């Protein structure tokens, strides 16, 4: 016990330093909050709503965290054994206090439940497209959307199909239009996705465009996003369910362009696909002519 005093002092200094660091972190938090402490958002209203819901729970969580850790550290420091200190209080319980924190905890959860259901609707259900979204074209009109959003322009329904280790996107329309890895979408337009898998389970996730949905073989999973006008650009994501050796390399990209650019991209792409198909047919005929094929 010869070094009891200095050691105690070092411990106090250490605790003070820890407390200071914690406070500094919390003060600095709002600045860096957007990046390090909250989910990705900014590409689609559902991602923004999830972000808001997350932040509300995070604030509640921080309050609870501070109360719990504060009381704990206070008790540990204040009531550490000291020579000549008071006897430990022989308390075995306190029914009102225990009932109090039980009810308190339950109430917090009721509040969280209510807040969740307030936001749920906007996260789950796709809004209508903007009037200046994708121009009404029969080829893109969604025909199989269960609850077509009322008003505004038409929505765009894309079939997303995951396979080891690639995503394929099939667009609606009589003439075939599909792409791999990069999904091109128009801004201002509600894009609904029907997500499937061809082999094992994958999970479709573009963090800035909302939550992930699992692609399960034999099932169809649905989600949506709507990138506002002016937010054209690329949004990256990757498969979020372990799907095999190259799971980490199963990336995806959504490229948002203006509706006008989208229309011309789609025309060009359709034409490319049609020509590629035709060339394939021509090659086959050529080979047949040369006697390679029956």
């Amino acid at each position, binding site marked *: 016990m010869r070094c009891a005093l200095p050691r105690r002092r070092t411990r106090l200094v250490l605790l003070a330093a820890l407390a200071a660091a914690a406070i500094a972190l919390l003060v600095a938090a709002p600045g860096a909050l957007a990046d*390090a*402490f909250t*989910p990705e958002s900014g590409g689609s209203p559902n*991602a923004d709503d999830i972000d808001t*819901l*997350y932040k509300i*729970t995070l604030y509640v969580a921080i309050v609870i*965290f501070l109360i719990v*850790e504060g*009381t*704990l550290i206070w*008790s*540990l420091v204040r*009531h*550490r*054994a*000291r020579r000549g200190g008071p*006897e*430990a*209080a022989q*308390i*075995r*319980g*306190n029914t009102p206090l*225990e009932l109090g924190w*039980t009810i308190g*905890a*339950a109430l917090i*959860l009721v509040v*969280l439940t209510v807040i*969740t*259901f307030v936001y*749920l609707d906007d*996260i*789950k259900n796709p809004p209508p497209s903007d009037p200046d979204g994708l121009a009404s074209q029969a080829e893109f009109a969604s025909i199989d959307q269960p609850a077509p959003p009322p008003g505004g322009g038409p929505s765009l329904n894309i079939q997303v199909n995951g396979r080891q280790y690639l995503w394929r996107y099939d667009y609606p329309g009589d003439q075939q239009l599909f792409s791999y890895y990069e999904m091109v979408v128009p801004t201002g337009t509600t894009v609904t996705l029907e997500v499937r898998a061809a*082999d*094992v*389970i994958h*999970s479709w*996730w573009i*963090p800035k465009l909302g*939550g992930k949905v*699992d692609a*399960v*073989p*034999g099932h169809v*999973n649905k989600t949506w996003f709507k990138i506002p006008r002016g937010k054209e650009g690329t949004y*990256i*994501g990757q*498969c*979020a*369910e*372990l*799907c*095999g*050796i*190259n*799971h*980490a*390399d199963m990336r995806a990209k959504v490229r948002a362009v203006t509706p006008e650019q989208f229309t011309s991209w789609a025309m060009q792409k359709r034409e490319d696909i049609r020509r590629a198909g035709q060339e394939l047919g021509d090659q086959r005929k050529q080979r047949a002519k040369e006697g390679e094929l029956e």
Partner: protein
Amino acid sequence: MEARSLTGRELGGSPEIVLHGRRERQGGWLEWLTTTDHKKIGIMYLFATFVFFIIGGVEALLMRLQLAQPNGTVVTPETYNGLVTMHGTTMVFLFVVPVLAGFGNYMVPLMIGARDMAFPRLNALSFWLLLFGGMAFYTSIFFDPPRAGWTMYAPLSDDSFSPSGGVDAWIFLIHLTGISSLLGAINFVATIHNMRAKGMSWGRMPLFLWTILVYSYLLILALPSVATAVTMLLTDRHFGTAFFDPTGGGDPLLWQHLFWFFGHPEVYIMVLPAFGIISEVLPVFARKPIFGYKAIAASTVAIAFLSLLVWAHHMFATPTSTVVLAFFMLSSFTIAVPTGIKIFNWIATLWRGQIVFKTPLMFAAAFLALFPIGGITGVMMAIFPVDWQLHDTYFIVAHFHYVLFGGSVFGIFAGLYYWFPKMSGRMLSESLGRASFWTMFVGFNATFLVQHSAGLSGMPRRVYDYSNDLHVSTYNLISTIGSFILGVGVLLTVINILHSIKHGKRAGNDPWKGNTLEWFTQSPPPVNNFDVIPRIRSVEPMKDIRHEVSAGVRAAETVAQPAAARSL
């Protein structure tokens, strides 16, 4: 305590000497191989599971090395997925669950004042099945280890996508360790129900025993589900059935339901006994009775019941209707209430105590600081729209390591430092213990705190590499450095044990001024544990006995146990 005079009968307990004769002890390793003594089996459990803990830890460090920087080349993607699977499986099935069975094995008979478990030979069988399960699993590294993650989601684990025998080795592990745990659980239930000392009513049973009892019931309820699931997977793989194969009319989601119906109770199986250890350690070192004994015992039971109703919160991203998601959100919320009650009760136990800062208390206090972080993030993820962003990311990895490492493992280390003197008769070094504690505490937080941010930035779990575009390189580097600090911390405890087992200070019967009956006997306890078993009058029988000794009612030498055993 009222100091009324006691009759000799009450003091000595009923005369039940069971030593009918003596067999010569076998020497050396043969004795360990053939033993049915719960203490020896307990030590074998602890030793074997700590070896698996080290192996699982090395696997984790290899993964952290690979992820230290983007484009890591330490291991191949194949090896990485193998490491993911081996690490998860090892830590869950070969470390946390059985190490708690190890503590239970050693402590249950001692704490209830019994001379062994109800079925000693069954107890030995439990241990050997565990060991062989672990060996069957680890032999797969010599041919082709499983690579589908510890959750072994079908169809990835099916023969079309995982043709190698690794998945089969995993199935054997689940069956062997599953039978081991079931037999162990039945043994605990039988022992705790039937063999408690006179006077130890349910309301006087140590809280660690409450948690071991509930742990056992949960194992009995949950294990059949995973046993069924892996058997179905086995027949899918080899005998042409298609339970989980969508091409044959099966459903991959069936696997997830069956697996998580086991898997979520499993989480509480892994953490409840750690709660029990905390409930034993805190009052002893705060020199205070536990605050709200009944509330803690009742919330243990409540958590166990609710844990059977929350499994689909692991499946929030699957195609499932909103009503179901909402149900599982609410059921997961309700679990937070009994868990919160426990945390408040533990903190109230420390409040106005005289807290003696020994290593077991420091680990227990760290548990109290870290477990709530995992609990709070758990509530956040129960909100299913939020979980759509957090699911299957490093946020989850951080969450469950706060629960299972910050919670369970720190609790296990508290138990190790607390009970080592009883098991070995020697104290662990305090200074090494402190060094180990602080290194582990700092390393743990450095490793896992930043992983929350990595997940929020979009980094999925179980990836061998990550994109520069995610801006998670700094988090990953911090995490890797932290993991090696954590490794050093664990190593210090290993050194401490290896050193102290030979050279530690003699512990004596009751070095901590404990509350429960295991401190009544010698350290280490003799083969028959107790010659006389005192009558239990409260939840803190040793405190009563110390009072009686200081009041002169009981002669001091009746505490120094038992004369007959010394000659053994």
